[in-house]
């Protein structure tokens, strides 16, 4: 019943896969942001686990920076989303084709 590094990596991969499924099936941009947060958290678990089992603090440092990046991503992303919602009244990904991409 020993929890090894592989347990944590498998858990991290499962969570990452859940986040990927969310990114691919969501059309609402807010829900897409939620899935992105899941992806970032999955990698955080992997970093912390590797940091613990190798005995190196660098993994935790990278996890801190990932959290900082996630926080700034949310601030900018929600600001842009609010501006877009005020313009169009919708936050669906399919309607964002003004550039005809």
């Amino acid at each position, binding site marked *: 019943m020993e929890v090894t590094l592989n347990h944590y990596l498998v858990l991290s991969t499962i969570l990452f896969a859940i986040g990927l499924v969310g990114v691919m*099936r969501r059309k609402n941009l807010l829900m897409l942001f939620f899935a992105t947060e*899941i992806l970032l958290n999955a990698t955080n678990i992997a970093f912390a686990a590797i940091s613990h089992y190798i005995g190196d603090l660098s993994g935790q440092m990278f996890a801190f920076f990932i959290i900082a990046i996630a926080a700034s991503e949310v601030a900018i992303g929600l600001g842009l989303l609010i501006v877009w919602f005020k313009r169009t009244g919708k936050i669906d990904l399919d309607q964002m084709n003004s550039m005809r991409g």
Partner: protein
Amino acid sequence: MFEAIAFYLFAALTITMFTITVMTSQALYAITAMAAGMIFISAFFFILGADFLGAIQIIVYTGAVMALYAFGMMFFDTTRDVVEKRTNPQIVFVLGVLAAVMVVAIFVAPIVSNNIQALYPIQEGVGNSQAVGMVLFTKYLVPFELAAVMLLVAMIGGIVLAGKKMDKSLTLMKEEEIGLMDDTFEPKAGGH
């Protein structure tokens, strides 16, 4: 023994919560399940001995990020069901599995190669917060300052994009209109 029990319990809880977040069609269920999942993830950090990271996870994610999402959701119509994209589920499944296997390969490769060395080993007799501080403010000082600048930029960006005068969008107006708005806005600013 207890570590294994805690690990499996919190693993099941986290996977359940994030599955609800991804699968539900109601935005409020998604955000609450998301906040719960974030707290459960902090349990892994406490199990792994990264106490400071766990505290940061609770404070920043469930305190700041989730509150920001809840605040942002007030602008949107969250009562209606979320419309889903109609994609081929087989493509989604195959792409998800491929990307997940790739992530495993990325993380397992350095361990399999087995020549990894601890650059900043965890010192004996020093608490986690103290060790984190010593490494963060010596070896990672420049990335730390860069992250601080990045957060400042994000804060200014958020204020500019979604800040005051919510009924008027500064990003949609011309320069003259903005100058005009400031003149007319000031006298009745108190009653706004």
